[in-house]
């Protein structure tokens, strides 16, 4: 099993956002999380990746058998967790490739592996850039500096390809991508699917799930997972919205 979240309660500035999340994801599984705006999807992703500013008031997260909540964000990255940001951050003047090389080598060092030299790394990124058809000119630009919304999202999946995570959290990667880009980026994600890699996709639209077909679909609303189903659940949500899920859960 990749990750097991049990009865997770979390708050921001004293306001409870997550109100008892239970979620188990097996190795190689692809899960989609859907839900209304403000329901806590990004909050959940951020807490798994280790972002500051959230207070976990109760519950636990076990990742590869370890207590995830004890680890720093970089340790989580070294252990294979990756978050594709809903809003990727610009870091002016810091070369995109340089950032990734530092990240990859820090992880290799942590695992007692030989660090990659500049040539080896360049070869790696060139190859991975092809996976999402990222123009090589983006490799030498500042991290997300002046990237368009869609370019930023494509860059996130490129980073995922380079960092080869065990658990990838894709927070609304589809939003901002044009029709062709969505197909290309989704294709890249599909190539990254493997039996030892789990993927969580947060999305609002069924369209993404046409390309990346999930094993499981969850509805997160009001800080809880109210319903879990197969890929056909997404189609139903697209048609009917979320109210019926809430009503069903209340009943």
């Amino acid at each position, binding site marked *: 099993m990749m990750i097991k979240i049990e009865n997770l309660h979390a708050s921001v500035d004293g306001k409870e956002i997550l109100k008892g999340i239970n979620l188990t994801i097996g190795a190689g599984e692809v899960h989609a999380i859907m839900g209304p705006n403000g329901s806590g999807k990004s909050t959940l992703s951020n807490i798994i990746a280790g*972002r500051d500013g959230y207070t976990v008031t109760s519950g636990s997260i076990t990742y590869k058998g370890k207590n995830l909540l004890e680890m720093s964000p970089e340790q989580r990255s070294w252990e294979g967790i990756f978050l594709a940001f809903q809003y990727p951050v610009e870091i002016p003047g810091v070369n995109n490739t340089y*950032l990734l090389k530092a*990240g*990859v080598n820090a*992880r290799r060092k942590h695992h007692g592996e030989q660090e990659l030299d500049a040539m080896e790394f360049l070869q790696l990124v060139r190859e991975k850039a092809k996976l999402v058809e990222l123009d090589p000119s983006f490799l030498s630009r500042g991290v997300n500096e002046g990237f368009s919304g869609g370019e930023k999202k494509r860059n996130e999946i490129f980073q995922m390809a380079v960092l080869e995570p065990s658990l990838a959290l894709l927070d609304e990667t589809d939003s901002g991508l044009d029709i062709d880009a969505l197909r290309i980026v989704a294709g890249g994600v599909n190539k990254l699917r493997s039996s030892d890699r789990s993927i969580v996709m947060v999305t609002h639209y069924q369209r993404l799930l046409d390309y990346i077909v999930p094993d499981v679909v969850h509805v997160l609303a009001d800080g809880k997972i109210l319903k879990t189903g197969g890929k056909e659940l997404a189609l139903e949500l697209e048609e009917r919205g979320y109210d019926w899920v809430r009503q069903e859960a209340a009943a």
Partner: protein
Amino acid sequence: MSETRQERKPEEFTGREYEAGFVTDIETDTLPPGLNEDVIRHISAKKEEPEWLLNWRLEAFRHWQTMQEPHWAHVNYPPIDYQAISYYSAPKSQKDGPKSLDEVDPKLLETYAKLGIPLREQEFLAGVAVDAVFDSVSVATTFKGKLKDAGVIFCPISEAVREYPELVQQYLGTVVPTGDNFYAALNSAVFTDGSFVYIPKGVRCPMELSTYFRINALNTGQFERTLIIADEGSYVSYLEGCTAPQRDENQLHAAVVELVALDDARIKYSTVQNWYPGDENGVGGIYNFVTKRADCRGARSRVSWTQVETGSAITWKYPSCILRGDDSVGEFYSVALTKMRQEADTGTKMIHIGKNTRSTIVSKGISAGFGQQSYRGLVRIGKSAEGARNYTQCDSLLIGENCGAHTFPYVEVKNPTATMEHEATTSKIGEDQLFYCQSRGISEEDAVNMIVNGFCKDVFNELPMEFAVEANRLMEVSLEGAVG
């Protein structure tokens, strides 16, 4: 200043103390603390200077006595007792002084090692000519032959006074006059060493020129004087780097740098300054009050100042360009870091006089801890400066809650054809940027370094290659423990 002088006891003026001092100090060749005309005569005599130079010094001293220490800069420091400073100190024996870097203080080399720039490698591999200034006397000059073949003069200024008196007399004090400001006047009166560079007409200096300064003996102020003359159509890149070992008492540093660029000449002057900044409480750092000025005297001449400032307790520094020649260009690229209790008040002055003169100012200020930093820039477009252009960009980056950044841009435009552009930003290292880096596997400290170096990139790009690498490391070493 004047208060300090009034407080002095009468016996301090008698000079008997100094006479005695001279005798006992012959062994160490260090003057006892204090400043009067006898001290200046002593310095001048030690250096076997011609009469004109002694008189020049004395005139500067007399002027200095009438001047007030400036207090307008946005910095705070206790009053400096100018009578408590020794104005001349040579290494124990100049003749047996270090002839190679092997004989250099291992502590100094250690600091460089930490910065990843072994001096020897730099000397041999990078082809850098090293004119090391230990205390006030230059003790080592290398690569002289190669420079000589090109006709380039690069030597201690005291040597230049002896060997090339007409050149020195022609240019010394023509960019920074003796009475220019309090510290420049003091420097003119008591300067003991520094570098002299002359690039003949049409010569491209075959290597980067570099001088490493170090402040050594306790309580010794340093008063270097640097004079660089680029004759018509010549080019030179000059690198200045500094470091100082830990000190308990604040040390004064009041250098003067004069650059003269004639027609079509270009001077690139780069500084990496890493003097001891003092401890967390601000104790023990170096006071850096330096006057740097370039005179773009010739048509189409060009001077660039690039500086990376991470050291000193107090920095007060405004490298300037006087754009006298038509179509001349002045550039100022600066990165300044203040942390702990450091204070810096830096900037530049661009004085446009010639037609179609252009200036560019890029200032990057980083404040961490309790650091305080001000950018103070003056752009003056004179009446005659038809078609002058200036571009100014001031960016500040704050790390933490207790530091500050201030900008004081002054603009005076007397010619309506001028084009002025000004951009300013202040940003904080965002929690979101740090988390983004961390989520990619980079530790918080490395992330801060990365973000800071990215912020400084426009300026680092202006540095010569080997200095750019050093500047990156310097920022990292300087930021150690600055976050949290």
